[in-house]
């Protein structure tokens, strides 16, 4: 199995649109994961049929039993996450801030316990091209990195024998992104020709280089700002990063998102044609990767 993650650094560059198109185009047996667990959108383009849902229990959260609390305030003093608040004559834990370290339980084992708390759910679904593992994080909940791990683990356990594991990643460079790219063979970074796009591309590539995947780049809406497309190409060239696709700005993309299908499934628009070229370049990369592995 080869594991590919589509990421971007900057949000809104077109990760999900490209992942969904690749889901339809790539040959062989596939399993998909939507690791943008904060705001998962891949399901909006792959029309999944839900097979089952499992609760996601993240790290435990502290709970204070007011019956045993003598209001000494030790817990609040020791909590470094400011998760314990005094509300009149009682102390309580704000679950949005509790990181589950259990220091409060150590200082007050009588009134405080750590209790499991559901912070999301993992969904296992069927699509025309293979199984999709996706998730829903309760808005405002933490542990999104752990939920990403749970999503990847489910995909590997259920469909580990597939040829390809295709992941739609989160934006950013922090905890969920690092959790997404760990153990992945290839990352495809989708960028756009803007000062922010290039800046964020450089940062996310710096993170990828601390792991071992092969890095590829695609430039979305490349015709909107030619000078920055050139700057991206120049930088990728210097860094020895292949650019495997350049997709033009095309209203057909928004149109197909509104229709809930990958753009390559609609009529032969300029964006769809460009993604087909991207896909064949990616196939070539995969062949190269398989040969190297042998």
């Amino acid at each position, binding site marked *: 199995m080869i594991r590919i993650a589509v990421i971007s650094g900057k*949000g809104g560059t077109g990760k999900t649109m490209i992942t969904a198109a690749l889901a339809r185009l790539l040959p062989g047996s596939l399993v998909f994961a939507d690791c*943008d667990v904060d705001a998962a959108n891949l399901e909006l383009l792959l029309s999944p049929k839900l097979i089952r849902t499992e609760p996601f229990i993240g790290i435990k959260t502290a709970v204070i039993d007011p019956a045993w609390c003598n209001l000494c305030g030790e817990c609040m003093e020791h909590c470094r996450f400011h998760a314990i608040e005094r509300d009149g004559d009682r102390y309580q834990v704000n679950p949005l801030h509790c990181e589950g370290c259990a220091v409060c339980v150590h200082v007050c084992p009588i009134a405080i316990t750590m209790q499991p708390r559901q912070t999301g759910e993992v969904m296992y679904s069927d699509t025309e091209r293979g199984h999709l593992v996706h998730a829903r994080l309760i808005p405002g909940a933490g542990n*999104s990195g752990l939920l990403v791990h749970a999503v990847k683990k489910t995909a590997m356990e259920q469909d580990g024998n597939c040829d390809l594991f295709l992941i739609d990643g989160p934006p950013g460079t922090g905890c969920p992104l690092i959790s997404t790219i760990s153990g992945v063979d290839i990352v495809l970074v989708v960028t756009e020709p803007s000062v922010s796009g290039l800046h964020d591309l450089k940062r996310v590539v710096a993170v990828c280089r601390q792991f071992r995947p092969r890095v590829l780049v695609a430039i979305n809406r490349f015709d909107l700002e030619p000078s920055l497309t050139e700057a991206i190409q120049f930088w990728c060239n210097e860094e020895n990063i292949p650019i495997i696709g350049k997709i033009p700005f095309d209203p057909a993309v928004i149109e197909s998102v509104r229709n809930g299908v990958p753009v390559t499934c609609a009529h032969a628009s300029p964006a769809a044609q460009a993604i087909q070229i991207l896909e064949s370049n990616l196939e070539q990369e995969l062949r190269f990767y398989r040969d190297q592995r042998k």
Partner: protein
Amino acid sequence: MKLAIASGKGGTGKSMVAANLAFTLSRTRQVTLVDCDVEEPNLYLFFPTPAIVTEVTVPVPVVDENTCQHCGLCGEFCQYGAMTVLPDRVLFFPELCHSCGGCMLVCPNNAIHEEQKRIGTVVISRPLPNLKLISGMLDTGNPHAVPVIQAAKKEAAEDPLVIYDSAPGTSCPVVETMDGCDGCILVTESTPFGLHDLRLAVDVAGRLNIPAGVLINRSDGKDQETLGFCKDLGLEILMTIPFNREIAAIQSRGNLLCQVQPTWQNAFTGLFTKCRDLCKGD
């Protein structure tokens, strides 16, 4: 007044709104702009000016191997698996550590003390006479965004008017940014992705009890579904910015719409008036 700019979905134009709002307001008053998207901070690209950089550090444990009895209590206590105690030494994984101080607390031999470890920077500049820009920047490869956001917000704690530009998503970095704000602008786009993630962002704002209004960016006129959603929930549409290649190009080149096309300043002043009413709860 403290105002957050958030979105759920990435790339809807949070930073564009934050930068132009701050630029416009700075013509008539003191304003502080805080970049809380510490994983991918972009605001400073729109305001290139010399800046003062300070390091953000967090305490991490250091084990004194001479005093340590390798009893294993710290490893058992650590909820994050950051400490593994072997018979003859302790392995510490700093990227898993949340700096809770628990290991130091449970060690019966006082063999653990803390030292500061750098995880990012806070960069402060004054690009315009009335504008203070504070950017939180997480070091690449470091997973812990929240302490950097806290450090950046702290620098603005005493300032009268603060605009916080949030990371996308709905998890800890967004909660940390929105926490303590008087109101928030949720920036969306009229696509099913935009609407799906707007729902989530509205949910976060509600859980934090922060009044929210919506800004539709890159509108192609097909906003009915978003408008319907906002109407049902009683969310005010604070502003609509049309899709237009010229606006996109100004933004792509790292320029400010309100500087290149000053007529936009009126619209952003109007946005601020609506936000002020929102924060007051009118």
